[in-house]
């Protein structure tokens, strides 16, 4: 695979995912790659980030220790900024908000996603038990489920597959997937390539995908901004 084009790095994947968040959306960011999205909201848009422990409306991640409010973290425990209009609540209220269908987009990491939109992200290989966090509530109840993940697992296996064989988190929920080679849509039992990373061909992407891809009529190279 020495001729394989370059993979998108994590910040570009986050920018691709952030690019499509609509103005005014209420968005929850899951652990791992999705947490970076709060850093890349285009300045012409207001997006309200929700976090499980009871926050709506936090800002970008904070990297200067002098600026850190130790109580204000994202779901992954990374310090984030407060922002005007932010509010706090309890865990039960936070999940009433999720279960009640008030979250527009949830951005989740994944171990496997399949053509039916099933999501597996609970059983990390080598861990003694599955972990769900808030992901099961979010995947089941958010209006749109966006997955951001590497295209291949660390062992080289495709993560977009015909049928998940790992522990399932939620059924038929995934709408879109951003990986380090492209942007995909999942609907009606099909995975459709919408955009590809610079330098990649449809054939190269198909070769590392575990399900036969449909290709959008207007498939194009990913463009940011």
């Amino acid at each position, binding site marked *: 695979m020495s001729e394989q084009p370059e993979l998108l790095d994590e910040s570009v994947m986050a920018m691709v995912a952030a690019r499509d968040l609509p103005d005014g959306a209420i968005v929850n960011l899951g652990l791992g790659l999705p947490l970076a999205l709060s850093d890349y909201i285009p300045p012409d848009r207001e997006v309200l980030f929700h976090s499980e*422990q009871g926050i709506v409306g936090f800002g970008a991640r904070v990297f200067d220790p002098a600026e850190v409010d130790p109580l204000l973290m994202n779901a992954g425990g990374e310090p984030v900024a407060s922002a005007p209009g932010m509010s706090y609540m*309890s*865990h039960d209220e936070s999940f009433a908000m999720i279960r009640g269908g008030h979250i527009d987009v949830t951005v989740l990491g994944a171990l496997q996603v399949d053509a039916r939109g099933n999501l597996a992200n*609970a059983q990390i290989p080598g861990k003694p*038990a599955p972990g769900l966090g808030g992901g099961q509530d979010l995947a089941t109840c958010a209006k749109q489920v966006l997955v951001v993940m590497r295209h291949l697992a660390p062992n080289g296996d495709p993560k977009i597959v015909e049928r998940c064989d790992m522990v399932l*988190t*939620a*059924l038929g929920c995934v709408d879109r997937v951003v990986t380090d080679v492209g942007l995909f849509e999942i609907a009606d039992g099909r995975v459709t390539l919408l955009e590809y990373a610079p330098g990649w061909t449809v054939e190269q992407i198909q070769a590392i995908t575990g399900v036969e891809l449909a290709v959008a009529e207007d498939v194009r190279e990913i463009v940011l901004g």
Partner: protein
Amino acid sequence: MINKVVGSFDEALADVRSGAMIHFGGFANPHNTPNYLIAALARRGADRLTGVSTYAGHGEEVQRVLFERRNLEALHDGWDLGLMAELGRLGKLITSFPNGNSRELLYPFEHVLRRGEAEVEVLGQGSIAERIRCARAGIPAFYTPVGVGTFVAAGKEVREFDGVPHILETALRADFALIRAHRADRFGNLVYRGPRTFNQTMAGAAGVTVAEVDEVVPLGDLGPDEIHTPGVYVQRVVVRPSTPHDDWRTPA
């Protein structure tokens, strides 16, 4: 006269027995965790406890690494549920995160599970939160669409509402709820600082709710518009020491 303020953490937990079920408040951050109540529970020595917590606790070592990664100063009194796991006091844990999310950082409870020394019930965070809220509100069970068709649905009643399958989850009432808040008055009224996490959710969902606070203020200083948790839900209040301790064994 009503006075829920207790003189010490040890006194506040003197009646916790082995085998008790305990709600542990907070959310994966020592700054919203009832650190001194957990230390007192460790000193109390009760074991075979059933814990309910959003995560299984970092323990001292993982917490130190996480703080270092973020260039934050480590706490010396940041005790969390990981301490109870390290001491082998948990017989069962009901949680959404039994493991650390990273492949290289292992929660103390992961070692406990590998040795087969405790049971675990893994459930989504929202279902845990609502089971606890129901206990506070006197509702025995509720239906949720979350978890249908997955391992969490095993053995649970399924019922359709508007054509959508839901599973039945039951209320989760504990013997003790250990929570953290910012300020309290002698009635047990509480004000939190920052996201209110499971602290506010668990208040009132146990026979005895104990709140660890930074400060107790005179009655009336917390106005009716600002109180987050009415004292009705709180039985005991204990104030954190003004000088942090650095050993959980030190009486507080």
